[in-house]
């Protein structure tokens, strides 16, 4: 009698727990086995002669990094490597660290990183390197001691020279221009502007820089500053904006004003922001780098490091497929090259 009382009551609660666990496990193992298949295939490739390369952008779901990873994958396919892209959903350094740790555990041959912080991911990178993983940074560097090579998208000189070349060409070689920058203490922009002022004096005697305005990398401020520039300088023939926010705001203002087609707008912009202004004729051409080429070069640099073809020392040379030969410069930097010019003929090929 009592025996039956003792045994049976456990049944219902146990069913609850077992059912919950089975359901939970089905979910967990289901997810594991799905990707376990993919992972296994990758490992198979890695076990052969393929170099394993993992791209770790600042965050996932960013068109710019989608493009650079496309380039990285293209390179990996060319040299028979195994390509993987991992990354956090937020562009913070602490979110990047677990992925660097994981790469170290996996023992991947090379890790290609766009750093969210120059130091915060340094210790994790050190650990990965002591586990034998080569580290390439691209787009955004860490302190030099934490990586083997930095693939730099463009040099300050290259950016300054290309923007002057574009604006001079578009205004016919002479006349007044203005610069619409980001904030007054933006380090990058100020370095480029100083270089542009030097080059204007030495190479473009007929081009006169009449004003440097600051739009604070704010769309509305940049828009208003553009209007003010055009009002206070009636003879203005061109505006150079070395910031993606500024150039888009300037183009938006000019595209609906009487200055459209008369005042040249150029600078650094992204194809997605500038597409409509190139198509409606407000903007002839602008510059930036090609993130696909950047990823392609970074993957080749990673491959060269993994093969011990280069060590990251100044003067090392390696070949990066369709982009040709590259030399490692001071501080382990590899320069992608001159900025890339986007115009009507090629803008449709880019989505970032």
């Amino acid at each position: 009698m009592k025996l039956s009382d003792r045994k049976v009551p456990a049944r219902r609660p146990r069913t609850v727990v077992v059912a919950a666990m089975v359901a939970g496990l089905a979910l967990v193992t289901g997810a594991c086995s799905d990707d376990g298949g993919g992972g296994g295939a990758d490992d198979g490739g890695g076990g052969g002669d393929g170099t394993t390369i993992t791209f770790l952008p600042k965050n996932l779901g960013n068109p710019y990094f989608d493009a650079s990873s496309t380039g990285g994958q293209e390179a990996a396919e060319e040299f028979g490597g195994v390509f993987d892209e991992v990354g956090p959903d937020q562009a913070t350094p602490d979110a990047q660290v677990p992925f660097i740790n994981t790469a170290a555990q996996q023992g991947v041959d090379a890790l290609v990183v766009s750093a969210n912080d120059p130091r915060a991911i340094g210790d994790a990178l050190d650990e990965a390197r002591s586990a034998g993983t080569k580290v390439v940074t691209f787009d955004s560097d860490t302190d030099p001691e934490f990586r083997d090579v930095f693939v730099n998208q463009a040099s300050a000189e290259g950016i300054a020279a290309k923007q002057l070349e574009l604006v001079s060409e578009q205004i016919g070689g002479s006349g007044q221009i203005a610069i619409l920058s980001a904030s007054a203490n933006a380090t990058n922009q100020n370095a480029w502007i100083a270089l542009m002022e030097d080059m204007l004096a030495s190479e473009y005697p007929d081009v006169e820089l009449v004003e440097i305005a600051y739009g604070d990398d704010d769309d509305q401020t940049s828009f208003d500053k553009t209007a003010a520039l055009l009002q206070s300088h009636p003879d203005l023939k061109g505006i150079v904006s070395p910031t993606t926010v500024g150039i888009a705001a300037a183009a938006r203002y000019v595209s609906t004003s009487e200055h459209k087609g008369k005042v040249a707008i150029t600078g650094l912009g992204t194809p997605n922001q500038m597409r409509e202004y190139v198509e409606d004729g407000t903007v002839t051409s602008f510059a930036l780098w090609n993130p696909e080429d950047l990823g392609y070069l970074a993957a080749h640099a990673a491959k060269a490091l993994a093969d011990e073809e280069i060590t990251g020392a100044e003067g090392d040379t390696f070949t990066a497929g369709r982009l040709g030969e590259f030399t490692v410069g001071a501080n382990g930097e590899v320069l992608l090259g001159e900025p890339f010019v986007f115009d009507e003929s090629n803008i449709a090929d880019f989505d970032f």
Partner: protein
Amino acid sequence: MTTTATTTPRPAVAVHARPWWRRALLTREWATVALLAVVYAVALGTVTGFDGPLTITYLVLDITPVLLVAMPMTAIILTGEIDLSVASVVGLSSVTLGVLYQAGLPMAAAALAAALVGVLCGLVNGTLVAYLGLPSLAVTIGTLALFRGLAVGLLGTTAVTTFPESWTDGARATFGDSPLPVVTVVLAVVVVAFAVLLHATPFGRDVFDIGRTREAARFSGVDVRRTLLVLFVLSGLVSALAGVYYTLRYGSARGDNATGLELQVVAAVLLGGVSIFGGRGAVHGVVAGVLLIGVLAAALRLENVTVNLINIVIGALLVLSVVSPRVVAAVARRRRPVSSKAHRPERDRSIERSQR
């Protein structure tokens, strides 16, 4: 058959009749522990690289801030309240540490100041919730934005990274050649302290009482306001400690440190079997919940699963863990009237089932 049963003190018999392991497994907490064990075993067996010593090191380092903050969060959720500002307190204490160290203060003094900032944050939350009677959800969503805003405002987009290496290395150091990080000691102390506080002191009983029925707790002499204030201050203090750890582990004080940590913490606490309505839960379940999420994320990352899928798996697991016991219970309830022939409302359920 049933007449003799009615004369025995059934609930006591029913409980003690079960073997201890079966009784233990019946709780939500131990179900989570068991699931953790299974997931860990599956990962060991199937995930390449999971069996390496680095796995444990990184796992402990990764879960440390979550587990630290989960302890006071458990206590607060047990009272039926919530503190969503914890991650912002982590960020603010991180920035405080960085700014003060950069200004020339010794590390120890800067760390102490960071802890004080955490206590202040807790006092703000606690006063608003306990003494002004405002809903903690609304208050801490507000202070989530407020504290994060202060943190980002103090440092802007820059970071302080010049911390002494003895401190930053200490945050990641392990015991000799073993994979176990030294910070495990801190974790153990905090976890044991909260386990004792909640499960073995009068204060802990007050916490559970407040969560079950606040009015009844008040009438039975529990100082509800003081208890809540203490919990929010503890939450601020522990979050600030997590902030100091966070800063040292990554060697970087930034305003955006630990963004989104509060949701990881709440997810782990609920996965560990703590009722969001308060009154039910235990520390060992929360520890298992934190570890379960940590192990799952580590294993899935090793399989190169994207972060979005990792979030989906953890989110689905959380929903499932909350929903499935209720679904099973509902199904069981629907079946019971059919199978039980005699209807005796005065009897407890175990007797009805014994008739099947």
